C-alpha cells in the first residue's frame, strides 16, 4: 500500500502514522522536513511551494512503489505541503512500516531523496531582507555557465 498526496493545510503526523500500522510490521521510520530560518547565508522569513501536481503525484506514486519493491517494506506514504509556509512548519512527511527496522530506514531515506530530486515541486524563499528567490533557479540563471548546472542539485 502506498500513497502520495499534496495538502494545503498543516500536516498532522500522528494521523498519518496511524495509517501505516500493520500487525506484520515491527518497525516504523518517518522523516519530517521542516521550514528552516536560513538558507545559504540568507535569513528566511517564509516559503512558498508550488507543484505541477498531476505529474508530481504520478511520479511520487512511482517512487513509493519503487521503495516497496526494492526494500520489501509493507507500507509507505508521503505528504507534501503546497502554498505559504512559516518557519518551523512541516513541509514534507515520509513514513514507512516494515517487518524490520533496516528496510524501514533505508526505504524512508530513498523516498525523501527521490522526492527532492525528481518531483516537479518548486520552492520560493522570502528573505528577511525583503528579497525572494526560486531555490536552484535564480542564482544559477544569473551566475555560472549553464553547463555547470546540468547536474541535479543536491542539497
Amino acid at each position: 500500500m502506498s500513497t502520495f498526496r499534496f495538502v494545503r493545510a498543516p500536516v498532522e503526523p500522528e494521523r498519518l502514522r496511524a495509517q501505516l500500522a500493520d500487525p506484520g510490521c515491527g518497525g516504523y521510520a518517518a522523516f519530517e522536513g521542516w521550514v528552516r530560518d536560513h538558507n545559504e547565508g540568507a535569513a528566511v522569513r517564509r516559503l512558498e511551494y508550488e507543484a505541477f501536481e498531476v505529474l508530481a503525484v504520478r511520479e511520487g506514486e512511482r517512487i513509493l512503489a519503487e521503495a516497496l519493491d526494492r526494500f520489501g517494506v509493507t507500507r509507505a506514504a508521503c505528504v507534501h505541503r503546497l502554498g505559504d509556509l512559516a518557519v518551523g512548519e512541516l513541509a514534507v512527511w515520509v513514513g514507512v512500516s516494515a517487518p524490520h527496522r533496516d528496510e524501514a530506514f533505508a526505504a524512508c531515506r530513498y523516498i525523501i531523496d527521490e522526492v527532492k530530486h525528481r518531483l516537479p515541486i518548486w520552492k520560493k524563499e522570502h528573505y528577511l531582507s525583503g528579497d525572494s528567490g526560486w531555490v536552484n533557479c535564480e542564482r544559477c540563471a544569473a551566475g555560472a555557465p549553464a553547463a555547470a548546472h546540468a547536474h541535479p542539485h543536491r542539497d
Partner: protein
Amino acid sequence: MSAHPAPRTEAAPLYGLLLAGGRSTRMGRDKAALAYDGKPQLERAMALLQRHVARAFVSVRADQTADPLRARYPQIADTRADIGPVAGLLAAQERHPGVAWLVLACDLPLLDESTLAQLVRERAPQRTATAFRSSHDGLPEPLCAIYEPHSHGPLAASVARGRHCPRKFLLSSDVRLLDEPNPRALDNVNTATEYGALMNELRAQPGAADKRITVQYYALLREQAGRREEALATAARTPRELYAELSGRYHFTLAPEMLRVAINAEFRDWSTPLADGDAVVFIPPVAGG
C-alpha cells in the same frame, strides 16, 4: 487630484492591417488565396496578426469587398487607387486616427510568431515607425512594420507629392530598426516559381504545419512569462524548438540544459516530436522537500 504622478505618455493602441489589396500581377493569381499547410495565406496571416493586436483588419481595394475570403474579416477599403500598398495604410489611418498600425504584407508565408512578437515588444512609440532591417539588403522592411499615429501627416504629404514607395518613406523617417530573429521570416513570395520552390521546401519538413499547443508555466517561468498557461499555434517540431521560440518572446533566463520537459503530464525527451493538441510543461530545477 490623483495621488500618483502623471504616467509617461502611453503608447497608442495597436491595430493590425493585412494588406490584401494587391493585384498579384507577377503571381498570375491571388496571393492572399495561395495555400500553405492547407490554409489560404490570408487566413494564416490574420490568425498570426490577431494574436498581437487589439483589432485586425484586411486592407482591400474598393472592388474586392465582396470576395468571400476577404469578407470573413473586418475590412478597410482603399480610398486612393493605383498607388500601391501605402493606399491601405493611409485609408486605415484615416478610419482610425488615434491608433498605431502593425502593417503586414499578405505574401510572407514564413513570418513566424517570434518575429511579430519581437516587433511588438520592441516597438518605439515615440519614433515614426518600428521596422526590421532586411537580412538581404539591410534596408527597412516597410510591410512588416508598426506605424505610429503621428506618421500619418508626413506619409500623406509624401504621397501627395507623388512619392508612393513605403521603403523610401521609412528611409527618410525616424525609424527604430530591428534585426530579424529569423532571417527568412520576411522572405516574400511573388511569383509562381517562388511559390513552387517554397512548397517543395515546406513539404520536405513534415512538422511545418501549424500545431495548437498548450503550454503551462510554473515557478520562475510563470513569473517571467507573466501567465500560468497559454494556447498557441506553432511550427515548432520539438520541445527544444518551442522553448527557443518562447524564450524569444519572454526572455527566459533559464537555459534549456537546466530544464526538463513534460508532454501530456509525462517526462519526455527534448527532441520528442510535438503533435497537435499536446500540453507542454517546461520544468525548472526542482526544489521539493
